[in-house]
């Protein structure tokens, strides 16, 4: 199963402050560990939201609204992510616990989210029923 380890933004990351060399080294070491364990799929750091764009749909069925950053609520923003493939939820938590405190001054927060699998969607009885109905329809059309 795949998990995304989401590193939340902080006032520093939003200000575009670069992390200390010490933290960069620790992160690099951690990423190497993930690679050596064969669990790392992808990892990226994001630029501050001042360089971001937000698209929202305030009216149902209405036109989208495009707003340029920065956005204010730092805790709800993300500063980076690491995608891992693991065998269990506990393993994902263990890896997340081994990540260095991502900012190092008291605002660090990592959120773990499981990625949907196509199988998760496929095993859903509704989707399966819809698929089956569609198949039947196609069969009938073919016979007709």
């Amino acid at each position, binding site marked *: 199963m795949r998990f995304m380890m989401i590193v939340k933004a902080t006032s520093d990351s939003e200000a575009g402050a670069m992390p200390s060399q010490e933290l960069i080294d620790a992160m690099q070491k951690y990423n190497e560990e993930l690679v050596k*364990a064969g669990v790392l799929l992808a990892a990226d750091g994001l630029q501050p939201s001042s360089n971001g764009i937000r698209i929202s749909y305030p009216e149902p069925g209405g036109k989208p609204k495009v707003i340029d950053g920065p956005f204010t609520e730092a805790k709800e923003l993300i500063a980076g992510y690491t995608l891992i493939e693991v065998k*269990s939820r506990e393993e994902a*938590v*263990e890896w997340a616990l081994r990540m260095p405190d991502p900012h190092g001054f008291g605002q660090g927060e990592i959120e773990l989210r499981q990625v949907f699998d*196509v199988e998760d969607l496929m095993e859903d009885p509704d989707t399966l029923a819809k698929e*089956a109905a569609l198949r039947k329809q196609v069969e009938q059309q073919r016979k007709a």
Partner: protein
Amino acid sequence: MSRASAHRTADAIWRMESPKLIASLTRMVRDVGLAEDLAQDALVIALERWPVTGIPDNPGAWLMTTAKRRAIDLLRRNKVGERKHEELARHAALYTEADIDGAIDGEVGDDLLRLIFLTCHPALSAEARVALTLRLLCGLTTDEIARSYLVAEPTIAQRIVRAKRTLNAKGVPFEVPEGKELKERLAAVLEVIYLMFNEGYSATSGENWTRPLLCQEALRLGRVLAEIAQDEPEVHGLVALMEIQASRLKTRIGAGGAPILLKDQNRALWDRLLIRRGFAALERSRRLGRALGPYSLQAAIAACHAEATSVEDTNWVRIAALYEALSTLSYSPIVELNRAVAVSMAFGPAFGLQIVDALHGEPSLLSYHLLPSVRGDLLMKLGRYGEAAGELERAADMTRNERERELLLGRAAECKEKLKPSTE
């Protein structure tokens, strides 16, 4: 922390740490079975302590220290004559406390590599190699292995016990082979990983078309190997092949569990991330600057399919050339049959048919339904409908897949339809 959740956490940690633990311990005590016992003893102690003390900051080091202490205990006990296990007594003389101290730090990558070469040793049968590798390098339980292979748990347990005994009896050294031997032994390691992957990918038995656990374990082990054997192009080739094949894992089965062939798969659902990783691995293989081996060639073929938006858009000329290189390197009738398909797509059905006809009477393809199926397809494209219908019906008789049978019979009927004189 509750006992149950501590248990699950310890399981996860075991999976993350046990291969390294067992690898280092094997170097110390020179007996993989004993090493596994020591590592497991450490886990048992952890399961008792951790619910009370909490999980230590560095659980891997904690387990290592605990296992090491067990090893020293046993060593001392053996020295004073309390020879509890005969096996231990035999090995007691082989290692000293200094060995154990020295083994705790240092690069574990080399030990892991030695362990892979040990569990994939040619002294073991293919089945035993796979089971032992899943157990010691992937940290799977015998129950998980048994379920993945749809066999009874005691069978797997026995297989593993016997494998460990064989390694001991034959005195297989814990080392990375060198020189000429390295090439052969590495091929054996890659074969084990690819067998594992394929068992998961195309499930030779049972109702499930794919068993993802085995694919994931093989992929993970391949990625680990790519880091500890970075200079081996075929390691990257195998990883590339598995990444790209795994990218299609989710599009290979329809809702009813029926297989979907490559040409009919919904390419929009292919996992772009895995494809990208596959291309990167293939690039790593190429960058080492040696001639592409069989895995790298197969990965290159898989890459051609992965970057094509449709069957028509596929670079068949390149695929045909890659199959030719593969056939030269490691000839097999199945590779030839694949080459025939690629050649027909690249240069026309008549050229493909020549290759297929050369395979006529090939003993290993006698009951292989894809031979008449491909031949029928090519004949149909050439307008030789009578012969085509015969081949397609023959293929329908041979396949064990119900849906495929229907498909083949449908196309045979289409051919016969074309043979009827026009009524206009």
